């Protein structure tokens, strides 16, 4: 598996370069919003990837609570951390798009507010993992992650449940989209998903390595105590 990493990294970078070319050059300019609409290609792709990573975190948290496996816990930490990075991108690129289109950087609209709440939940998850030294930290974090996941469907369905300023989805809602735009959208979606999963894998390996170092340090201090007696 370790040998596959550089190959997958090269493939992902190539796919990302192709996706960027599609988003910035090939996709036609949208009639009403103009060039700024191109933010959509990586804003939506980042939101999807963040959602996928938070879902992985949810599954890993449930499995951890059932089996107490350290490697599953490592996957939960990795997916939450990389998910926060992608969610940060969503919260940064959204206002940059909103300023020229809506005339404001931010509004306390339901979709925007719930996305911010989702980000805050996972940031608190990471802070809990970072600063709590209790042996129960992974259990508390897993429970928090499960509650955090409840916000995800609210974020997704908020544009249907509430009157919001956030744009409605174009696809699957009676709207039509230019085939070149659709192609650019899906290429970016796939590229960002591959990139997110690859970074998550790297973070997972780092967490496993940290567990090994902790184990070695614990063993060393045990041997020191024994030799001093």
């Amino acid at each position, binding site marked *: 598996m370790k040998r596959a990493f550089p190959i997958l990294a090269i493939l992902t970078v190539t796919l990302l370069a192709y996706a960027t070319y599609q988003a910035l050059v090939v996709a036609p300019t949208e009639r009403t919003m103009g060039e700024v609409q191109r933010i959509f290609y990586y804003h939506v792709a980042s939101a999807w990837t963040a959602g996928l990573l938070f879902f992985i975190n949810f599954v890993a948290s449930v499995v951890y609570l059932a089996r107490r496996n350290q490697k599953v816990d490592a996957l939960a930490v990795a997916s939450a951390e990389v998910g926060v*990075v992608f969610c940060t991108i969503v919260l940064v690129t959204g206002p940059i798009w909103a300023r020229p289109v809506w005339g404001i950087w931010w509004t306390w609209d339901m979709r925007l507010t719930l996305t911010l709440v989702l980000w805050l939940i996972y940031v608190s998850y990471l802070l809990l993992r970072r600063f709590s030294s209790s042996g129960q930290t992974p259990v508390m974090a897993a429970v928090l992650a499960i509650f955090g996941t409840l916000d995800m469907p609210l974020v997704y369905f908020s544009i249907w449940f509430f009157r919001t300023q956030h744009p409605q989805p174009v696809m699957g809602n009676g709207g039509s989209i230019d085939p070149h735009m659709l192609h650019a959208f899906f290429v970016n979606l796939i590229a960002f998903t591959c990139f997110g999963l690859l970074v998550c894998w790297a973070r997972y390996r780092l967490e496993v390595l940290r567990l090994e*170092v902790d184990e070695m*340090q614990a063993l*060393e201090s045990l041997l020191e105590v024994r030799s001093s007696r």
Partner: protein
Amino acid sequence: MSYLYAAYIATWLIHLTYIGSLVRRYNRLRREIGELKNRS
């Protein structure tokens, strides 16, 4: 157009900063492993 570039630069700046932090943490762990192996 400047908003588009701002969003694009912000996206990759966040990603590269995070990848940089991963590389730093990885190097620190490798160093710790080396030290532990030298001591034993």
